[in-house]
């Protein structure tokens, strides 16, 4: 029994090293890389790690290539998926500020993402910028959109159309965001 525990303990350690420390430009590790290092039972190793991380308010997140959550993924889908560590709970606005995001920047990101989601995942940059100009100073709008693109939240094509990029898929619960925005009471204009 203890031998088995030791077997998984060492694999969980390896998985922690791989997932926490940045190896590529994008954070996280592909499933096939984990399989190569940890063996074919890597989903079980990740499950153990995820249970352990619960207490630390972190989680192992799986981002599938298909852009949507897959209920019962096959080994092939897992191999192609990206695994990364994300926060499990919520940050307070003060904490968000401490990790380098100003309230303005976060509000802008939230507005851009929700607007693109409502437009079926694609919206002209100009429309997004017009909407952002409502809440952000004009000189900051373009810079902020560039920053969201640089960080991997948005992607822009040669026709200046904006799309959601990998980081939004990994970090943002798009359905919850839209539901919360639509469910919120607007401040009556004075």
């Amino acid at each position, binding site marked *: 029994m203890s031998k088995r525990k030791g077997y998984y303990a060492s694999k969980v350690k390896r998985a922690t090293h791989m997932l926490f*420390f940045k190896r590529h430009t994008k954070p996280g590790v592909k499933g096939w890389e984990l399989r190569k290092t940890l063996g074919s039972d890597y989903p079980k190793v990740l499950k153990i790690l995820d249970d352990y991380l619960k207490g630390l308010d972190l989680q192992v997140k799986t981002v599938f290539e298909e852009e949507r959550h897959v209920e019962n993924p096959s080994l092939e889908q897992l191999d192609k998926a990206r695994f990364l560590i994300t*926060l499990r709970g919520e940050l307070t606005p003060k904490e968000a500020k401490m990790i380098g995001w100003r309230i303005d920047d976060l509000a802008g990101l939230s507005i851009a993402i929700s607007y693109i989601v*409502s437009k*079926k995942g694609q919206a002209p940059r100009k429309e997004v910028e017009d*909407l952002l100009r409502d809440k952000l100073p004009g000189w900051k709008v373009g810079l902020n959109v560039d920053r969201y693109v640089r960080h991997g939240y948005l992607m822009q094509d040669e026709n200046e159309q904006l799309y959601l990029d990998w980081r939004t898929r990994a*970090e943002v619960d798009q359905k919850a965001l839209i539901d*919360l925005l*639509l469910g919120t009471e*607007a401040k009556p204009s004075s």
Partner: protein
Amino acid sequence: MQSAKEREKLGRERLQRIMETCRSVEQRSLDPFVINVTENLNNLREFLQDWKLPDDLALDAETVNCLASVVRLQSEWVKHRSTTLYADPFLLEEKLRTISKEKVVRIFLRAWDPAVELEQISLHSIAEAIRYWQSLLPFNERWQQTSPGEVRAGSATREELLRDRILRDIAFSEELENFWQTLKETVADKGHEGKIRYWDFVGAETYEETVERAFMTSFLVTYGYATLEVRPLEEEIFIKPNGKPVPLAGKKQLVSIPIAVSVEDWTKWKRGELQ
């Protein structure tokens, strides 16, 4: 009574208008149902009998293609509306304008799980850095002033410039086209299913030649003359010539694929140990 020429002109204009509307719906992600596909198809049918020239028939086919894209968009639109993610863009836009910045942030933080990423230095990179530091010459030696010798201006012939590799014998684009032909011939001879293993194509008798072929291959891929097929699980790379150069600037994000062409790999390939 309209003359045949006038009718043809009118038909062409109408087709152009239909295509423009379809394209603007596609590009600006407008509601695809603003286009009445049936009515437009009837318009096309009305003019079809007038088309005699291949250009007009091509224009007709292109218009049908644009309308088909609109039908695809309509289908996607219905699918999206039936998903749980659907939110009326106008309603949402209105909400976004009326909610305060602080409230937007509070909502976003409830749906946002930022990724944890740590930058680190590994033992390996420290060892590399020490090796680099030890081999680095002192600053004053590196920046030593060398007095330039007296240079006399003279003339050189084209042959001399070619010999010294200052000029190239043929233009680079021409060289690239020739290399593309070589790839197509090699694939036809030794390839399988229209592609060939990367090393089987770039590998040559000498290491210098191999590097040169790898260099040219990278340009073939960059300029759309060929496609790289990377199979990460099998650790195999194939190169596939395109029938004609394909421009790569599209919606797809371009990626760089670094492929090491080291002496060790070349030696392994020569021994038949590397595929």
